[in-house]
């Protein structure tokens, strides 16, 4: 990053609140419906129709704001933000402007092991617009999305790098998913992120001109888009050009930002309080009730994992990165009583297949109970590492119990001590030099002997008995 300039970044994150029906109309929020199927007369803005606020949207907004450590406002007001656009049916968007539902707050996260805390300015409720698709000669409008409830989370301009901004966005997503208020899917648009980026010469007090970046649909692109934009602004300033206050779109294919409009039209949204809605009044008891329902957040969980389960920071952070993963981990540990072994199987084998398969949590066949049983068998030495891996992979696909897989595959462990002794004796006879070396102190060679036994047994010898017997036989 440039050493001559300070970078100032603020993020506006739009999170879709997971309700069944829309914010002000009782039409469905289902994402996968056909064109204009989730529409009521209210969200299509028919003459004479009126908005009525969804209780669940309010409750989720409160929950989200609490998860982001915000102060809930007991009075908030929906205003009309007015502009003409074909996917905005009423000619105005309902949004909390002067009086948002939440103020202040902060988001904490770790970046390269360092704790960060980003202060929030506010969080406010609003309704989404419909979706336009452009076809050159004409534009088509789908209103399925129009009126879906959103919470806009506005950070203070306190972020100083693209990496930090992306980490912040991930942390917000994490917090919202932990609180179960938003599914956090960037690709489907249930989480959207606008970035305000400006730079100023190092040490200068006054902020530089702010550029807003839109159309960013992954965390990786948040980082790339901001990095590109910083470089662009640095180039601008160095070549004596002026930075224009504007909205730019990020093109992930070209990895560039583009100006949205040639001539910047002066917007005048003419906000005023919506006379069709009354102020939203919340009482402290209701807020308290919601705060009691709030599950443990990711930061608290990370701390608990390191203290209670003695996990290292990296493992703890990886486990809490997704709420489902952390839940899965705790389910495993409850049965296996072995955090370290559970963590290692979960973060290595499990995540490898999880990421390769691209499965969603609810599609998972492998139950935590079956997985825990497998880990217990490993712990008891009933399966060799190689066998365990094979059983695990089958369980992943079929969802069977480890016992069922072992029987099906005829993978019975050889625990016959005399058989194992016979193999060991043969190996000792064939490798006299190795035996001598081991006995004179080269203890690393132990692994070689284990490997040879396993090879002879076709991987089926009980590792525990192999270890015990080898140790006995190799003694001078």
């Amino acid at each position, binding site marked *: 990053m440039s050493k001559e300039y300070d970078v100032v970044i603020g993020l506006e994150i739009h999170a879709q609140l997971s309700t069944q029906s829309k914010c002000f109309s009782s039409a469905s929020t289902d994402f996968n419906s056909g064109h204009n199927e989730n529409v009521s*007369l209210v969200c*299509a*803005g*028919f*003459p*004479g*129709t*009126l*908005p*009525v*606020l969804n209780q669940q949207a309010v409750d989720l907004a409160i929950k989200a704001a609490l998860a982001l450590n915000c102060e809930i406002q007991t009075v908030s007001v929906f205003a*009309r933000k*007015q502009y*003409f*656009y*074909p996917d905005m*049916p*009423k*000619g*105005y968007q309902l949004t909390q402007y002067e009086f948002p539902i939440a103020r202040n707050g902060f988001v904490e996260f770790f970046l390269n092991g360092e704790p960060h805390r980003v202060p929030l300015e506010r969080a406010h409720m609003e309704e989404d617009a419909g979706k336009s698709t452009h076809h050159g000669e004409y534009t088509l*409008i789908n209103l399925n999305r129009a009126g879906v409830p959103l919470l806009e989370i506005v950070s203070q301009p306190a972020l100083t790098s693209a990496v930090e901004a992306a980490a912040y966005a991930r942390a917000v997503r994490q917090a919202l998913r932990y609180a179960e208020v938003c599914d956090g899917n960037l690709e489907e648009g249930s989480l959207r992120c606008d970035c305000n980026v400006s730079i100023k010469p190092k040490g200068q007090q006054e902020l530089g001109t702010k550029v807003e970046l839109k159309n960013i649909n992954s965390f990786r692109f948040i980082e790339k888009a901001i990095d590109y934009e910083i470089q662009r602004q640095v180039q601008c300033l160095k070549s004596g050009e002026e930075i224009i206050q504007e909205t730019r779109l990020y093109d992930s294919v070209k990895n560039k930002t583009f100006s949205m409009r040639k001539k910047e039209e002066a917007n*005048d949204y*003419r906000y*005023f309080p*919506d*006379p*069709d*809605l*009354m102020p939203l009044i919340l009482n402290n008891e209701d807020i308290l009730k919601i705060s009691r329902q709030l599950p443990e957040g990711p930061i608290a969980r990370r701390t608990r994992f390191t203290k209670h389960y003695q996990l290292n920071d990296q493992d703890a952070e990886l486990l809490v990165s997704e709420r489902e993963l952390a839940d899965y981990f705790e389910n495993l540990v409850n049965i296996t009583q072995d955090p370290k072994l559970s963590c290692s199987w979960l973060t290595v084998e499990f995540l490898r297949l999880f990421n390769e398969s691209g499965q969603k949590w609810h599609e998972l066949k492998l139950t935590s109970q079956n997985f825990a049983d497998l880990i217990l068998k490993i712990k008891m030495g009933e399966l060799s590492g190689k066998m365990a891996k094979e059983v695990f992979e089958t369980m992943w696909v079929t969802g069977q119990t480890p016992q069922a897989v072992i029987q099906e595959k005829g993978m019975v462990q050889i625990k016959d001590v005399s058989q194992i002794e016979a193999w060991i004796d043969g190996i000792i006879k064939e490798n006299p030099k190795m035996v001598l070396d081991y006995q004179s102190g080269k203890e690393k060679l132990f692994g070689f002997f284990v490997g040879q036994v396993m090879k002879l047994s076709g991987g089926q010898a009980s590792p525990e008995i192999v270890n015990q017997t080898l140790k006995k036989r190799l003694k001078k």
Partner: protein
Amino acid sequence: MNLFKQTATELVSALKTKQTSAVELCSSYLKKIADLNPELNAFISFNSEAVLKRAQTLDDQKEKKGKLHGLPIAVKDNFCVTGTQTTAGSKMLEHFISPYTATCIEKLEREGAIVIGKTNMDEFAMGSSNENSFFGPCKNPWNLKYVPGGSSGGSAAAVAAGLSPVAIGSDTGGSIRQPASYCGVVGIKPTYGSISRYGLIAFASSLDQAGPIARNVSDAALILDVMIDRDEKDSTSVDRKQPSLAQLKKAAKGSLKIGLPKEYFSQHLEKTTQNKIKELLENLQKDGFQTVELNLSLTEMAIPVYYIVASSEASSNLSRFDGVRYGFRNKDQSGLSDLSDFYKKTRSVGFGDEVKRRILLGTYSLSSGYYDEYYIQAARVRRLMANEFTSAFKKCDVILTPTAIGAAFPLGDQAHDPIKMYFNDIYTVTANLCGLPAISLPLGLDDNKLPIGVQLMAPLFAEKAMLEMALAIEDCVQFKGLTQ
């Protein structure tokens, strides 16, 4: 039995006792509409076939439980009624067929009322003369050269001319009461929030209220009682839980104290109206009603506050008319340079002059740099006005004022002077700004044989006292309408 001379209350009981049928009643009224409407232009549309079909269905029902079973009702054309052309008096909605019915009309229908037709109105309810209708002006049945008032001119004219026993209007700044006054009928604007606005095409959300227009106070109360209810589809609707308004007693002599704000009897008021009110007050005083003079010092601010608030809200409420999802779209799309051209072409042709004037005014009042000076200042003065009324009602039970500065004016008389036209609303807008219930009832005729009206206002939710006082006044005035 002469059906046209019967009040709504009488008709309902005649229908119950089978002295007449819904089919007989509707066909009589439809015939009269067919005869007189071409000249009067009180209705924008009516569908005889559908009306008679519904009447037959109601006649066929064994149990006639509904409070209004079989009663024809004319409905202002800014109320959505399923399957009817619902135009709001505008080219913008000339061919709009509503896919749903307004809650308050649904409530009337559930009690057995029959929507006999949709009445003429100033475009989007903006006007005080009905001359701003895309479908041509409605005329005053007392004298066809005069305006019926507005914006619910069609509803008032229809009731006055006997084209419907009762009608529904909407009142944003006097749009029920002023035409009721001009046409010699009774019109009520209830307390804000009493009647659901769901399905009433919005002009100004914080001012609009639906209400009945009828030949007498009892008929109006009968309809009002059915319409008042909390509606979960309207966030501004209130749960009133109040006693029925259907069974009213005339206010007992001397039981109520009448407030007389001196600002409402100022130099603007025409002499005849002034004298008639004086006469009325003398009679009421004889009956033991006490009067008290009030000061409502902010009265002269009512017109600017009203026009800023109403236009601001209207400019926003009318943004949805953009030619995308329903209504008029300008087919001439040549030379569109950008999207805003598309909107401009449609909206500039689809809206009439007065509507455009108010959209501009409202847009200006809300625009950055003027918002505090206009919209916010108006909303603050509005608060002061409401406070002033609260204090005034500590000294009296009802407030009595003229409804308008005089009787109806001739067609075309004020069309070119918007400010003069705005001034017609001076006595009526305060009730809307402060949310108060108000009623206009006939007071007599002026020298031109045109009706003049008197207005009562009451505290929020005090309709009962207001209507009982109105019954006492009605009794005192003994006004004879055109149908009597």
